[in-house]
């Protein structure tokens, strides 16, 4: 310990000086943070407005539909993750013990667990607790059932799970129009729907840009360069303000659809460029081997080139998705959703008390929620990467 300190922090006079100054500064900042969290912060504002931050103004009598959807999504997610795990499971390693599994889960999901714990702690009703138990149960059951499915059906299962998820979100909109959704829920759903749509579209655009057909190549290039070159907020504002000029009133879609369309257009352009980079990283010999082995171009692309290309770009791809998740707050700004950020702002501007001016507390909570989501995505992507890395050179 002492040796480590000497070697790393106090090697010379200059080193020691830097250590002391930087150390005391960080201790001071840490002290202020702890004091704010534990003593001076008026967290009542979050406690009082918790429901607003989590699900906006979702009507109380439709809360059952919301909960059912979330549990169903948990179940589908469980099935999908178990089936995806079949693809990548390492043949050599022994199955982990229950304790190892629990530890692994704790390390992987502690930010989410922290948020859920916090919400449960702050909430005054039993609803959230029941929902949490329901979701955890659904994910577990989903994983167990998914594990029983034979490996052959996995592409079908994953597609069915994806469409099931989209359908259940649609089903949810019967209870409460999309446009009035709010809180973290709207950020989560906007991001989830946009990600699941922009990924396949981005892949198609990337393939189009490398296609042998000039028209396809040109269209893809124009699309990508057009949507990549415009700020996202400008696209969102255009979706809000200028769509009416081109489309008759009765056909104009609601704000949620507009937001999703803009996110998909914008992000798929970025995804396309990321995937194109991945396609270029696959050695030419792979394509030659596939050709020499009698494969036609389509199986060569989908069985040989794309899997390797996508594996190579997982970090960049997930970075883009995290960015999209956070950018959903712009939909709140531009299209008037009471999403997590806008809702948080609104709380602090209420005329009667209940949180007037408590901007720091609210923003800190909002930030924590986004951080937990983003960090989990980032960690899971690293895990996926190393799992898929089993077969890499």
């Amino acid at each position, binding site marked *: 310990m002492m040796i480590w300190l000497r070697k790393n922090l106090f090697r010379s006079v200059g080193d020691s000086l830097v250590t002391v100054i930087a150390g005391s500064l960080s201790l001071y900042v840490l002290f202020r943070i702890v004091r704010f969290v534990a003593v001076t912060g008026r967290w009542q504002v979050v406690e009082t407005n918790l429901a607003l931050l989590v699900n906006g103004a979702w009507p109380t009598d439709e809360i059952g539909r919301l909960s059912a959807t979330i549990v169903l999504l948990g179940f589908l997610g469980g099935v999908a993750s178990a089936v995806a795990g079949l693809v990548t499971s390492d043949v050599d390693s022994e199955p982990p013990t229950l304790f190892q599994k629990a530890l692994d889960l704790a390390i992987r999901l502690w930010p989410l667990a922290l948020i859920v714990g916090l919400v449960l702690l702050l909430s005054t009703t039993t609803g959230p607790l029941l929902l949490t138990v329901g979701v955890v149960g659904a994910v577990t059951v989903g994983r167990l059932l998914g594990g029983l499915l034979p490996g052959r059906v996995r592409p079908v299962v994953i597609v069915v799970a994806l469409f099931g998820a989209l359908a259940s979100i649609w089903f949810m909109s019967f209870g409460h129009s999309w446009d009035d959704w709010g809180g973290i829920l709207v950020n989560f759903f906007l991001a989830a729907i946009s990600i699941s749509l922009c990924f396949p579209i981005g892949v198609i655009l990337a393939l189009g840009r490398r296609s042998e057909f000039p028209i396809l190549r040109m269209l893809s290039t124009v699309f990508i360069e057009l949507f990549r070159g415009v700020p996202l907020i400008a696209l969102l504002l255009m979706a809000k303000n200028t769509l009416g000029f081109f489309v008759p009133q009765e056909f104009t879609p609601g704000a949620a659809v507009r937001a999703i369309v803009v996110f998909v257009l914008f992000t798929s352009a970025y995804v396309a460029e990321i995937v194109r980079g991945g396609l270029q990283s696959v050695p030419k010999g792979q394509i030659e081997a596939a050709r020499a*082995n*009698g*494969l*036609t171009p389509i199986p060569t692309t989908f069985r040989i080139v794309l899997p*390797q290309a996508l594996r190579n770009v997982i970090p960049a791809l997930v970075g883009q998705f995290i960015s999209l998740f956070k950018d959903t707050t712009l939909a709140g700004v531009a299209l008037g959703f009471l999403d997590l950020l806008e809702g948080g702002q609104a709380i602090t501007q209420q005329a009667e008390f209940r949180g007037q001016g408590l901007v720091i507390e609210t923003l800190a909570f909002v930030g924590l929620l986004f951080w937990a989501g983003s960090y989990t995505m980032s960690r899971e992507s690293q895990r996926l990467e190393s799992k898929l890395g089993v077969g890499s050179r």
Partner: protein
Amino acid sequence: MNELTNQQPVPSDARVFNDATQLATNVEPMIELRGVYKRYGSFEALKNIDVTVGKQEVVVVIGPSGSGKSTLIRCINRLEVHDEGTIVVDGIELSDDVKKILQVRRNTNMVFQSFNLYPHLTVLDNITLSPRLVRKQSRKVAEAKAMELLERVKIPDQALKYPGQLSGGQQQRVAIARSLAMEPNVILFDEPTSALDPEMISEVLEVMTDLARSGMTMIVVTHEMGFARQVADRVVFMDSGEIVEVGDPEHFFTTPDEPRAQAFLSQIL
């Protein structure tokens, strides 16, 4: 390996060539190249190539680097497009006709210098992918056949591993098994041992020797002169895009006719 020097797949009395690039009259041709040219801009990679390879024949192509050896065999399965002349493989003439190209690629197969195994698939999947997708075999049939082939290349215990977990020699043997799984009539070898550590070369050459003995038609681009001498029915010597000399290996390695071949052999032997 010494007994291999006596191997004679074609009766020796039949091997009377007027022109060594042509076949003895009683051998059916598998691959015929007539007046083939390949150009990159103004550079001529192949110049007026004329050669015929018979069924079950093993032809070894040697020559200095950049002499067009690889280009030559890559033209045979259309990984390169020749600019002039005709190439007929197993009765099918190569042209822009995609169907014919596919047919040729299904009848032939290639083993590469850098193996080019699919790194994201297991050894078993590497071998069964084309039989399943192209030959429409069921997974069960394809896997049984793949295991048989892995036995043949002596690594059945590696079936569930990924290429990255194997040594270079093992990877190249998997690549040979992958080629065999398509039941080709011809296998083209593009410097199959050049990327291998010395101690792994012999295990690959052994598999190739077995293959030659089983009657597979093979064209092998290689720098392994021992292999050429022992296994080849004919040796083709290339230099700057031309076929300089074609001959029976014993004759070629002991008393080559052409000065360029003499110079090349004196450098490497």
